[in-house]
């Protein structure tokens, strides 16, 4: 795949071949006509881009860490414009798209040569693509971090409400939580383990963690995954847990559940 800069340069070169705006429109119409068909059932209200006079639908999916866009419009020149955007940005990482300034649009003079309503539509298309990229990007801005920090606190509090059925210490302090990620959509992803692979209450504990976290205000979804890699050992206990258990008496082989 060619780089983002190369893709932009290719569009600028294509556009500079035409002197007349009518010819540039012909080129956009051609792009629009050749855009990959968009499924009718995905022409839904939530995929409609606001601010366009013609209707524009945009759908995205993330695959292998890259964003892929599909789109359609009932107006062919608009469809050409969105095809051009997709051609440049589809298949790139969210970070790459979110970090781009989209200024090549100004370089080809597209915005100035559209009617104000359509120029607004173009701005809305770009804003939507940027928003999708930002949402899927793992890079956090200072605002993102500030927004997520209290959520992390509250989620940890929620996890601490769940106890191992056989040990009087919560699963967090036991060191059973290997990973906790809250993304910008406020979905929580948890990777956890048990003290031994044979825990008979495993399903119940997993469900309890899931529910406890999902119930935290602001959390939109919670996904809990079980792993035994690496296997748990008592060095993973928190200081509080060690005190609670009186570590000198603690023997992991006895307590394995």
């Amino acid at each position, binding site marked *: 795949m060619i780089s983002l800069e190369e893709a932009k340069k290719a569009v600028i070169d294509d556009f500079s071949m035409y002197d007349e705006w009518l010819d540039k429109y012909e080129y956009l119409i051609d792009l629009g006509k050749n855009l990959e068909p968009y499924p009718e059932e995905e022409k839904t209200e939530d995929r409609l881009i606001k601010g366009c006079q*013609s209707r524009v639908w945009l759908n995205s999916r993330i695959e292998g860490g890259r964003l892929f866009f599909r789109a359609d419009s009932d107006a062919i*020149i608009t469809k050409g414009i969105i095809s051009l955007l997709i051609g440049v940005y589809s298949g790139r990482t969210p970070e790459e798209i979110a970090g781009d300034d989209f200024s090549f649009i100004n370089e080809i003079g597209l915005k100035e040569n*559209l009617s104000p309503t359509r120029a607004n539509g173009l701005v809305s298309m770009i804003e939507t693509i940027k928003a999708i990229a930002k949402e899927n990007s793992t890079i956090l801005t200072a605002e993102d971090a500030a927004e997520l920090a209290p959520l992390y606190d509250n989620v940890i509090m929620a996890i601490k409400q769940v106890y191992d059925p056989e040990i009087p210490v919560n699963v967090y302090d036991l060191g059973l939580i290997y990973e906790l990620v809250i993304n910008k959509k406020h979905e929580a992803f948890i990777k956890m383990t048990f003290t031994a692979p044979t825990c008979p209450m495993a399903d119940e504990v997993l469900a309890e963690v899931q529910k406890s976290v999902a119930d935290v205000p602001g959390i939109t979804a919670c996904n809990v995954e079980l792993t035994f890699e690496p296997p748990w050992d008592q060095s993973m206990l928190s200081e509080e847990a060690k005190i609670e258990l009186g570590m000198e008496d603690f023997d992991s082989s006895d307590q394995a559940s």
Partner: protein
Amino acid sequence: MLPALSQSVHGKPLVYFDNAATSQRPESVVEKWLSLVRGSNANIHRAVHKLAVDATEEYESTRDAVKEYINAASREEIIFTSGTTASINLVAFSYGESFVSEGDEIIVTEAEHHSNIVPWQMLCQRKGAVLKVLGVDDEGHLKIEDLPTLLTDRTKLVAVSQISNVLGIKNPVKEIVKTCHSIGCPVLVDGAQGIVHGGVDVQDLDCDFYAFSGHKLYAATGTGVLYGKKEWLDKMVPYQGGGEMIATVRFSGTTYAPLPEKFEAGTQNINSVPTFKPAIEFAELLQDKDIQEYSKQVSDYLYTALTSNPRVRLFGVPRGTEDKIALFSFCVDGAHHEDLALILDKLGVAVRSGQMCAEPLMDRFGVTGMLRASLAPYNTIEEAEYFIKSLERAVGMLI
């Protein structure tokens, strides 16, 4: 005579076919405005100095000119506003406050501009009144036969356009007024398009309110008129409070100025309102029989050219030779209205695309928008021919 028309856009001579949105201003209007700004710029009605006296004279003599032009019974019945929208909002508020209560009904038609729908919706919301809608048929004519059944003793007002800005069909407003008056219900006529195409004699029409804008009638923007029968205007509460609209102001209570000042609070559009005078003169000039005949030829040519194209679906189909103005809203099968307008623009042709501030009507015909060519008497047959050729070229590019 019309400076804006002699320019080129995108290297092509301008063909301006968006007159229903706003017309171009003749030199006489531009000059009147400039002379007021440069020479007689002073606030009206107050000071005794020369400039103020001149400005007041310009403003008030315009009221007489408008009164003559629409044949109102008295000058007190002419209220200056910022446009049709402001005129309708004034009635929706002041008439509504005075005469509409919970459970009352207001009737509008399906073919109205948003300006003649939303103020009434707002009134109904405020008062708990009901908004009822008179439909249009497939050809874009009002279903006038439904009106008597829609009208009840709770109907407090019927608001209808003289000519729809989308369909260009002359509505039977006189008949509507007669039907409504037979049960004592007043009628507001939105004359935004009608004042330009044929004008109005408000006494003959006998409507209770008539609203129109200056800028579609070749006058400066930000000007408009509300005509209201004195008997109604006298009984209505003021719309806005402020300077000019008062008789005496005390903290114990304020009394209002008599008509028309009662409805003209604050400093009016003193530099622009007087442009109505040269604008009316220009409009009267265009009433010339030869000009009218020529305009009809241009209009007939466009009608024939558009309707003979099997891809074109015209909205607002005339039934006689006199009931449609030179305004054509249409869709082209397989080509989006916005694409067409964009390409036409690059060919120098200014037309309108989209919903044209009439979303309910777009829904009625099941379309997301239309393309509209609206002409003024200064448009020529050559321009019409060039438009048709350009349209064909645009369609060819898109299909």
